[in-house]
């Protein structure tokens, strides 16, 4: 089984000590222990099950602990079609998550509505919540979902402490009607 090695952040090292910025260490720790909340509604959820299972093994990336409660989750993985009836519930789940939180839209339906350009389907979850990473595919293969997770890890690793307090971020949330 492949073990993912993460390089240590840039450091000033001496005998028995290393100096770096706190946020780099925090980012490193966060990135490799993401607790995902699988918001799996349909087909992509089955591919996510395959991603979780033995062949693809999401646990290699430190994300094997699924958090079905939004309160403890770091990453909202939206997999599958989100109907308009589901939209408010998705938003509610997002609001219940504590900062810092990330969102990944897995599959064509979650990203844009996919083939379901119909009266009942939300045309992409970015109509109700902000999204960090989109994974294309109908459904995306487990490799693509893993790639999406790695992309999220990159984001997490390099996020500054100030981002969540910045004006841009507040404006982004305000754009979705979230205070």
């Amino acid at each position, binding site marked *: 089984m492949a073990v993912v090695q993460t390089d240590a952040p840039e450091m000033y090292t001496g005998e028995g000590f290393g100096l770096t910025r706190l946020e780099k260490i925090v980012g490193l720790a966060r990135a490799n222990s993401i607790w995902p909340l699988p918001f799996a509604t349909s087909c992509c959820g089955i591919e996510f099950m395959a991603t979780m299972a033995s062949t693809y093994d999401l646990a290699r990336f430190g994300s094997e602990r699924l958090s079905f409660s939004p309160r403890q989750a770091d990453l909202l993985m939206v997999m599958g*079609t989100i109907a308009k009836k589901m*939209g408010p*519930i998705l938003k509610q789940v997002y609001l219940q998550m504590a900062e810092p939180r990330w969102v990944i839209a897995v599959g064509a339906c979650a990203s844009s509505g996919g083939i379901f350009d119909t009266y009942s389907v939300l045309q992409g979850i970015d109509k109700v919540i902000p999204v960090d990473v989109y994974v294309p595919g109908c459904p995306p293969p487990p490799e693509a979902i893993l790639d999406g997770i790695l992309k999220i890890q990159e984001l997490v690793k390099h996020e500054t402490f100030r981002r969540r307090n910045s004006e841009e971020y507040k404006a982004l949330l305000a754009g979705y009607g979230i205070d």
Partner: protein
Amino acid sequence: MAENKNIEKISGNNKVIINGQLQTDADLSQYNYLNLGPTHPATHGIFQNVLKMDGEVIIEAQPTIGYIHRAFEKLAEHRPFYQVTPITDRMNYCSSPINNIGWYLTVEKLIGVEMPKRVDYMRVVIMELARIADHIVCNSVIAVDTGALTGFLYVFQWREKIYEIYEEICGARLTTNIGRIGGFERDFTPAVIDRINDLVKHLPKALKEFEKMVMRNRIFMDRTIKVGGISAERALAYGFTGPNLRAAGVDYDVRVMTPYCSYEDFAFDIPVGTQGDTYDRFCVREEEMWQSLRIIEQAMKNMPDGNYFADVPEFYLPPKEDVYNTMEGLIWHFKIVMVK
């Protein structure tokens, strides 16, 4: 955007409506009301349940469904027959090939085309593989829901092997769009045949291992036996089909009663439950996987020679060299492409 009224009723004021009945103050003080779902990990397939409970016993429940309503009907109205197949993939996405082939059979009946035996056998192999893949999801996830993750990890390796067979046949893993109306786009390649034979040889060991782990497990049995039991009469009145109906004790299987795709050529048993509870449903599915393996084995052994498509000149495009070299081929080509 719609507000979810049921959630509001539970969390906001004290107005609770269950199955059209406004709950009285006496009810509200006597019973507990619990909102389960739609994002609860146990509500597979997404539904909401507002439960009326006396202690831990559920007295009544109001289910709300439609959280993944995707308007298949309206989509299909707007598409030609062959473009409907990708929609059927996404109906029961655990076993897409069965949906695909169900749709093909319907259209073939409509246009009155007979399939050659080889197509039937190839379809049977694919459908039984899909049945195994579907039952693996059902049975391993019920084990996960009752607290045993290990079995899930064991059998999912084998589900991947079935996906590999799909990939070899049609190029897709989950939403397969396998075959065509009127047969297949290509024959089984030697790699497909090797993989299927390999699966038939090695899956029994994994299944046995899984059964050993779960089937007689005390915790699993305690949590599933006499849980959610449904009598045969009730199952019929409520329109149950498939393994759920058989678990309730009705020995009805459409593969036997109205054989399609040459199912009459194969010897297999129909497992039937007695209680109709969760454990019976689990056991029926488990046994159906064994029977599916039997069918696949027979089909692979007796696979007849012949065409992998129905050679119907009205619908089947002539080979390209005929179109370019013979007048007759060209006329047929244009007749199908321009007229149909």
